[in-house]
């Protein structure tokens, strides 16, 4: 009954949050399921092309609406994720890597499964099929682990990401006032914000799936330990990186056609990555392409320095995410560091960027805890696994209290606003 519950619930949730987008989702699901029937016949290539053009075409058309102004359809929720997911299935069947799925219901469940439909991780059919159709839900331990993981994800999202977002959205809201050092500051903050936000969401997805006995693959592996941007992409948004590797980089030739061609392949792959994020992220993709293709130029002999350089490079190019409406604006804002320093101004005004002392302290401690957790060693993992039931009760209780008290959610209330609102 688990299957039926998951499927029905997924449909309901999608209709509630995604409304008419469900027709696009259905189209992708059904087209990918049925096209594989024709892979055993004469024109399998043609069918593949038809499928790819239609589905990727829809994805690009809807994403490009803003640029070309030819339609005004609401972009279906999760289209970037589920499109890549169905493409992976179809191509894998085409290549003979996996068998065609005979059961429509099973396949639909794979496409509609609500936890990963909205933010990933983009999952391969062969990785999740067994767990999806199994009638077993998680064991007691798995359910506990899943719930704690969800809490941890909520902590990252509400206490860290939302808190930093107050500062970054203030800085990016006024491009004439907050230039120079403010932009750089926002870039570094955004690195942490995006990580906490995205990985926090993934924690919730994986935690929830764990409760259902569904084991999804990790999407983040301590990315700030990366010693190069190349390594970064093995630790950040892993599902997307592996998808790009398997369905763009390798088909283009990978590193098997000479050095120059390899660099071109890397570039194209990152261009696609940029495009997947949106039209104004192409320059971001180009930058990452450069960082990865020419990673030798950015590495030193020191491990720590490499980690720092990687963090700095990656942070800088988040500027395109901070000013998403236009890559030109983003570049201008980044370059303003050379025209308007604002270092002193930033230092003087740090407490007027929406966070007061108390909030900065909470943020620093939370981020410290986040890094502690990310950099934890095997020793600590085993310690936790073998710890007593009291510890296992205490930790989630503390997490809940911390989230309720320090989380950034709901409408803020300031008594002082009331008293002094007009003075």
């Amino acid at each position, binding site marked *: 009954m688990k299957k039926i519950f998951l499927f029905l619930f997924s449909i309901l949730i999608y209709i509630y949050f995604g409304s008419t987008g469900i027709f696009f989702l259905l189209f992708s699901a059904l087209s990918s399921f049925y096209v594989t029937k024709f892979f055993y016949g004469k024109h399998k290539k043609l069918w593949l092309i038809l499928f790819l053009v239609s589905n990727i075409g829809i994805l690009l058309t809807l994403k490009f609406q803003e640029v070309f102004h030819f339609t005004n359809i609401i972009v279906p929720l999760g289209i970037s994720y589920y499109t890549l997911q169905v493409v992976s299935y179809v191509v894998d069947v085409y290549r003979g890597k996996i068998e065609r799925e005979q059961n429509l219901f099973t396949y639909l469940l794979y496409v509609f499964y609500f936890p990963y439909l909205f933010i990933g991780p983009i999952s391969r059919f062969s990785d999740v099929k067994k767990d999806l159709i199994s009638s077993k839900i998680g064991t007691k331990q798995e359910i506990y682990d899943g719930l704690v993981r969800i809490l941890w994800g909520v902590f990252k999202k509400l206490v860290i990401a939302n808190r930093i977002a107050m500062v970054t959205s203030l800085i990016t809201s006024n491009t004439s006032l907050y230039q120079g050092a403010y932009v750089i500051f926002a870039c570094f903050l955004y690195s942490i914000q995006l990580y906490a936000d995205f990985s926090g969401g993934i924690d919730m997805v994986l935690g929830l799936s764990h409760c259902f006995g569904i084991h999804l693959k990790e999407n983040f592996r301590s990315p700030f330990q990366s010693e190069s941007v190349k390594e970064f992409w093995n630790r950040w948004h892993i599902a997307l990186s592996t998808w790009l590797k398997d369905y763009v980089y390798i088909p283009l030739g990978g590193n098997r056609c000479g050095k120059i061609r390899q660099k071109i392949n890397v570039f194209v792959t990152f261009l696609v990555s940029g495009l997947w994020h949106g039209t104004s992220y192409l320059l971001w993709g180009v930058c990452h392409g450069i960082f990865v293709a020419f990673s030798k130029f950015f590495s030193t002999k020191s491990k720590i320095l490499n980690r720092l350089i990687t963090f700095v490079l990656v942070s800088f190019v988040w500027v395109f995410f901070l000013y998403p409406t236009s890559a030109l604006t983003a570049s201008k804002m980044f370059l303003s560091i050379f025209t308007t320093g604002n270092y002193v101004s930033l230092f003087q005004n740090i407490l007027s960027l929406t966070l007061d002392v108390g*909030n900065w302290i909470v943020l620093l401690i939370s981020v410290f805890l986040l890094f502690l957790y990310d950099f934890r060693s095997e020793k600590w993992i085993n310690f936790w696994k073998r710890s007593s039931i009291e510890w296992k009760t205490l930790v989630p209780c503390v997490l809940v209290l911390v989230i*309720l*008290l320090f989380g950034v959610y*709901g409408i803020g209330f*300031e*008594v002082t606003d*009331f*008293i002094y609102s007009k003075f």
Partner: protein
Amino acid sequence: MKWIRSLLIILLTLIIFVGLNRLVSPKYGDSLVEGSMTAAYYEEEKNHEIIFLGDCEVYANISPMVLYEEEGITAYVRGNSQQLIHQSYYLLEETLKYEIPKIVVFNVNSLRYGEEEKSEGYNRLMIDQMKWSKEKIDLIKASMTKEENFWSYVFPILRYHSRFSKLSEEDFKYFFIDNRNTFNGFLINKEIRPAGSLPTKKILPTYEFSKENMDYLEKIYELCREHNIKLVLMKAPSLYPYWYDEYESQVVEYAKSHDLDYYNFTKVTEEIGLDYETDTYDGGLHLNLYGATKLSKYFAKILKENYALTDYRLDKKVNEVYNKKVLEYKKKVEE
């Protein structure tokens, strides 16, 4: 045995949770004197023959201590800042669970208010300190603005958690008990700001009281009738906001059709002896202590003459309690 320790941890968490809810809730106390009025009622002995209902026009203008000194009347003012009529109604419903007074005096100013006057701030001032009851739930539902959420009233931490970095001495001082700064619901204000010029009397889009407000007035009327309470209407003597003739005629009509006494004090300011040079703390919108004393003396006479009220100065027990109150009151007045 390990399970017991885990249960204890959960229990401790719940206790801390309750404590945090209380800690982050604004106590107002000294920073905002109008915030501590609702709670004070519950500690009182419930022997009030008169309950006053209304907004700041009542808690600033009517002093029950003066009513007692003059005629031995026991009264309580259940009023809060910008208390809307539906809030007066539910507050009355709650009050009647504790006692049945002989008279309810309702200040009609709130009949003019509408959706625009609904405010989260004022809601919180009034509602946060109310004891949980069906009436409180109804009141919250009727008062909530669009942005508000019912559960944030049940668990204040959901609303006030961002105050953690702004906690002040007040939050700890009044952690267990709210501040007490009223005398039977009356708030003393000794400042004097003479009435000067006032804004032009504006033309309004409509002068008719809303159907919703009139329905609540009817509900107050019915509630009083059910409990054999005499409902009396009053209008405090404020110079501003203007009490339009159109408002007045509606109230007069209502009083007539329901056989209710209605006292419009804006029309008898000379008789009361009010001098807006000295008797107001905000240029004529509210009376200060001196003005309130005059008005209360005047009203006390009317109440004594027209309604069969007990002179509690002749009741040993009650008199002892009220004498203490009056002494404290006088001390505060002379400060």
